[in-house]
């Protein structure tokens, strides 16, 4: 038990340190890079007085340590500044739009995890067969695909040519009201409130961007599941199990899968990274009102406060997610738990 406590403490400590590092890094990013953010925002033809006023507004006229202190103080209060574009606090903007991205991410993860595991398992079981080669080929192809291009191709194919997909605009068809907000995820909320019109519409709109994301994200999952299963399947204790006559199916699901779970959990952390990056691209193309498209609009409009908030949020979520995964390891792997 001692070693478990030590493990958890160490992981927590590291997570906190990393989070602090993230906060510092974002500050460096937005304040200390060469170039004047005020000048970037106003363009090269701005008059000096306007520039000075903008600098004051952005807090750039203060010495760096003071800026840093203000920044930390604001963060401690949970504030991330005000968006130049929307006029609202960045935090408000993000919380409003987060559920949309979450819904997209969850849907994509679900699809990708299922597909990735099925293909990965098949590939491992039938190693080097034709099926395995095809699966590996698909995985490599998926990893080489440019997400934004794929989205456009899908829109062309499924909306323009085949008419299966709705117009890539927003989360619902025109004229349909969003369901009562419980989680903020339209599919979930409409299900919970029995709003079938909204349910069908939101599902229809959710599917296509999620499918696009899933297509690309399932590639690394397939690769890792396959590699993890192969690793385990060739290990010595599997041979022991075969020696005592354990039937193949039982070996697969009882011994192999459980041991392969550990590297598979890691993929979830990696997948999150891909999804967040992908959401910026996909949301913009499908006009999906999530934090991804928010980030894009912030970039285009030089809305530094918003960019800052977005990056902070993503990084913080990532650190917390990885922490959760590490703690989960300690539950699954007795070597960590018991030392």
């Amino acid at each position, binding site marked *: 038990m001692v070693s478990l406590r030590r493990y958890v403490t160490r992981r927590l400590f*590291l997570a906190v*340190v*990393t*989070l602090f*590092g*993230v906060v*510092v*890094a974002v500050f460096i*990013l*937005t304040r200390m*890079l*060469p*170039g004047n*953010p005020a000048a*970037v925002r106003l363009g090269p033809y701005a008059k000096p007085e306007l520039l000075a006023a903008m600098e004051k507004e952005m807090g750039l006229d203060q010495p760096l340590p003071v800026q840093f202190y203000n920044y930390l103080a604001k963060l401690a209060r949970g504030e991330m500044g005000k968006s130049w574009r929307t006029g609202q606090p960045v935090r408000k903007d993000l919380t409003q739009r987060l559920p949309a991205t979450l819904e997209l991410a969850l849907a994509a993860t679900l699809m990708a995890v299922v597909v990735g595991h099925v293909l990965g398992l098949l590939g491992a079981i039938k190693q080097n067969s034709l099926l395995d080669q095809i699966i590996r080929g698909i995985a*490599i*192809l998926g*990893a*080489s*695909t*440019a*997400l*934004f*291009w*794929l989205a*456009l*191709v899908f*829109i*062309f194919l499924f*909306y*323009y040519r085949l008419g299966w997909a709705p117009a890539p605009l927003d989360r619902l068809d025109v004229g349909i009201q969003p369901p009562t907000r419980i989680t903020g995820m339209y599919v979930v909320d409409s299900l919970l409130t029995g709003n079938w019109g909204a349910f069908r519409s939101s599902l229809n709109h959710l599917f296509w961007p999620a499918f696009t994301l899933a297509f690309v994200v399932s590639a690394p999952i397939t690769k890792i599941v396959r590699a993890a299963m192969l690793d385990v399947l060739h290990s010595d204790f599997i041979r022991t199990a075969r020696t005592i006559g354990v039937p193949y199916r039982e070996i697969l699901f009882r011994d192999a899968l459980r041991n392969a779970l550990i590297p598979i959990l890691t993929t979830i952390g990696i997948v*999150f*990274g*891909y999804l*967040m*990056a992908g959401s*910026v*691209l996909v949301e*913009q*193309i499908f006009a999906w009102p999530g934090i991804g498209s928010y*980030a*894009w609009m912030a*970039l*285009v409009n*030089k809305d*530094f406060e918003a*960019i800052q908030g977005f*990056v902070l949020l*993503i*990084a913080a979520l*990532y*650190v917390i997610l990885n922490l959760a995964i590490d703690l989960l390891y300690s539950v699954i792997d007795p070597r960590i738990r018991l030392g």
Partner: protein
Amino acid sequence: MSVEAAALQPRVAAEEGRLRSLWRVVREHRMLLVGLLILGTVLLVTAIGPVLVPYGPLQTSPELKLQPPSADHPMGTDNFGRDIVSRVVHGARLDLLIAFSVVIIALGVGSLVGTLSGYYGGIVDDVVMRITDVLFAFPSFILAMAITAMLGNTIPNVIIAIAIAYIPYFVRLTRGEILSARELGYAEAARCVGNPDWRIMYIHLLPNCLTPSLVQATLCLGWAILDTSGLAFLGLGIRPPTPEWGVLVSEGAQNIISGQWWTSVFPGAVIVFTALGFNLVGDSLRDITAQEER
């Protein structure tokens, strides 16, 4: 000839020549072969393409706008009547230039820092590890995105931004290798002879520890292509009318809804094709080096 010698003759396997064994490796790994073919094609087109293409990448012909693929314009024309083949071929230079620059910087900085970190251990290692942890907390595309946005939309900035996002990978890989290498016999010997630390690190150890980093570098080349074009698509880094694959896709995006697919699909397909080449080579290199170790 004695009986023994005669018996030995036909059974002794000739030692394989270097070139032959290289060829055998490539033949056995079909993925590698295909990947190399793809890359070869891309490099060839990049090198000679701009010379062979009849139209210029910036040459507009308003009357020819949005023509579907034809004999004259195999990939069609865009909103301004520019030939897409030409723009794709010219864009190749830019994308490949950026990709290679990114990887060279990331590999260079990453392995130098990683060697330091792995060799000295202690506080240096701790600090470096915490910094890489922080860098890894950001998905690399988002990090590159933010840095480019802050620095401004120029090509060097894009290179720096993406390189910064990739450096942690090389730091970790090199550090791992150095950690095991520094315990080996030859490192000990170099120490005993009185070599200064920097010599041991960079002249003795590092060259032997580069293999996983080189494999990763190949994969990073593919990622760099995807990331660069992704950034350009978002309007960061490279902007129209500079021909770059991501820019081309973004320029053509609005036409998709009205059915003129060729303006986006062809450039994007080229992106995928090139990234595929790098991924195939990188993956098979990884397989091969893993096998050799076993």
